[in-house]
């Protein structure tokens, strides 16, 4: 579409004929080749922040950062699939609100006397996926730009959350076990992060080992060719949005658990972490480029940047400005290795 594929980039229309027999090595090679600039930027940030405040490099802060990374990490997996095919999903905050509110009202909470256990998860996830499916179907079948459709879905999700919230008080989790689960540690890392890591692995597998994953990249590179080659383009498009919706639902549940209370605004601000993170990671908004690992590193970069500025004690008056400036430098570092290519940026 808007970008020219480059030689070491992920496989596109040509590569899709290769089937999923690639090795684990190749799975990660896709991530490792691209983001040299991104890794460099990350390392520089970590070194500088550790110098400014030694506590930045502590185990405690590592756990803290990984805890904060988990929700946007889950979201960025879905967002990357959608962006790779040249579309965009703006609905994540609404889906998070709807699924998070559904989940908490069906789990032990201060508002309703209902505890459906695992069913609460299932119902909330299905709701998230249905909203994603709705976006996908309208987008693929009615050919409405995903930007507009997902904007609508955002508000539908938010509307569902507000209806569930009603006039009543904030529902809070009453189950200690659930409220403590995200911060609980296994092998020294918080459970919330393990969940996100599993999702990332799931995303990598889809992206690299399934027809869907390769198909999405092909659609992003050149949709007419993908169609001509007999690819079920609409099915793939709907599939990508359904997965993004499902993961939006999961992120909504996790964020609700992390906060310990339900909120219609539980997804507030996530859109502007997730989409820049994917783009910083090299996932072009035009589609056909990028990868899961790179997007994940983009998320880590944004979270570390915020965390580091607080730990370094940057005056709140300057924090936004400093955040923006460092981000610009980081983006330049990320884009540097790619600058000479026949790349079209719009």
């Amino acid at each position, binding site marked *: 579409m808007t970008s020219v594929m480059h030689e070491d980039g992920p496989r596109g229309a040509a590569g899709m004929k290769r089937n999923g027999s690639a090795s684990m090595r190749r799975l990660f090679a896709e991530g490792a080749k691209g983001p040299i600039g991104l890794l460099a930027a990350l390392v520089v940030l970590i070194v500088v922040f550790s110098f400014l*405040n030694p*506590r930045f490099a*502590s185990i*405690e*802060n590592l756990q*803290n950062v990984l*805890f*904060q990374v988990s929700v946007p990490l889950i979201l960025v997996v879905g967002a990357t699939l959608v962006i790779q095919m040249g579309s965009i999903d703006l609905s994540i905050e609404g889906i998070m609100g709807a699924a998070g509110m559904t989940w908490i009202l069906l789990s032990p909470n*201060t508002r309703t006397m209902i505890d459906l256990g695992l069913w609460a998860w299932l119902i909330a996830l299905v709701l998230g996926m249905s909203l994603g499916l709705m976006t996908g179907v309208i987008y693929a079948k009615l050919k409405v730009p995903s930007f507009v459709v997902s904007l*609508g879905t955002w*508000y*539908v999700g*938010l*509307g*569902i*959350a*507000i*209806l569930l*919230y*009603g*006039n009543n*008080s*904030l529902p*809070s989790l009453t189950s200690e076990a659930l*409220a*403590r689960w*995200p*911060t609980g540690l296994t092998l020294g890392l918080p459970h919330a992060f393990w969940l996100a890591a599993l999702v990332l692995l799931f995303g990598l597998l889809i992206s690299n080992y399934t027809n869907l994953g390769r198909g999405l990249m092909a659609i992003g590179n050149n949709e007419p060719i993908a169609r001509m080659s007999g690819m079920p383009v609409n099915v793939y498009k709907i599939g990508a949005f359904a997965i993004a919706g499902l993961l939006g639902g999961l992120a909504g549940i996790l*964020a609700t658990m*992390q*906060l*310990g*209370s339900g*909120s*219609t*605004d*539980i997804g*507030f*601000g996530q859109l502007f972490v997730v989409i820049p993170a994917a783009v910083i990671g090299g996932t072009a908004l035009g589609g056909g480029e990028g990868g899961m690992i790179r997007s994940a590193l983009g998320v880590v970069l944004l979270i570390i940047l*915020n*965390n580091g500025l*607080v*730990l370094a*004690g940057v005056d*709140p*008056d300057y924090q936004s400005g400093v955040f923006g400036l460092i981000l610009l430098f980081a983006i330049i570092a990320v884009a540097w290795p790619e600058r000479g290519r026949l790349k079209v940026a719009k």
Partner: protein
Amino acid sequence: MKILTMKLTGPTRRAFGAAAVAAALIAGLGATGADAQTVEHPEGFNPDEWVIVASVINTTNPYMISNIEGAEAISEALGIPLEIVNSNNSSQTSISSIYAILASGKKPIMFVNTVASSDAPTIVEAVKQAGGYVTIWWNKPDEYKPQDVGDNFVAFQKHTGVDSGRCGAQALAEALGGEGDVILLPGVQDSTTSKTRVAGFRAEIAENYPGINILEERPSNWDPQLGARNARDLIVKYGDQIDGVWSADDGMQIGAMQSFENAGLLDRVKFASDGLYPKTLEDIKSGRGNNAIVGETFHRGYMASAIGLYTAYLAASGQIVPSELEDNKRESFFKLSCVTPENYEQYLQYDEEGAPAEFVERLIANGPWDTEPVPLVGGGVEVLPES
């Protein structure tokens, strides 16, 4: 972009409002007459010519929901239909929705919880053109005064932020025995409400509690999750050095408390904030975290909107002439009560079922400036103390 207004009465109004948000459509569902009118209008006032309008910043924040409840109660008592303007956190949406209502031909009796101070003049001018009466709550430019604009800008009303900050500082400092390190979580950094609360907190500490040291201030945008995140980062930074946390509102405090609980520190840290949300009340009642919450302030959204709308109604119906009122009834401060774990029980009555209607009944009996627990206590432009 979209106009989010609704014209409904009855218990399902908010539910429909949510649907309107969901569909991002203009919802113009026909107004039904209110059914529990308790007020005799004065001679010459025809309620059919008027519409009550309450403009709120969003419909998800508990405070805004309470604003809507107050507007519903007053609409019912006066027998005048209600329209809610959901600004969706945007000045632009707020103003365009208000224009749309003004264009409908009815004269507005309006309460506006402004998104930004700078919205006030535009909204007031539009209401004036339409022959309506408006009361603004919380935010307006200091130099923009109702006395200069005329009778259509009936009043500007608020609870003072400085008092709120002082309440929190006293409670927190006393709970810590006058010694300790605290962190502050202000709201949106450039909001007047947040600024005045922070100034009040700092002034009280500087004047009376030299042993209290403010470690750091991290604006958390009124957002519980950002409050939680900043609290986590500050826990990493200061560890168990933190003895107390003050937040500019309960939403952020809810997030911060969760972070301290997760870090296993809730039992040894004290919290103070503003708003006395239901969740906060529960935590005070249950003594969560070794009685972690030590100070709050009491005021309710429904009281603000009811006072604002009733003042505007009195002007619209000719029962008061704003230009003849003394200055502190044009730029008014209403009472804000300091709440502690010792006295919180006396405020429970104001959250019971039907409390807004009960408040409105007393409001109509006593007038907008003399109704407990929020009588008029002063006025003018809030002066920030030096600290």
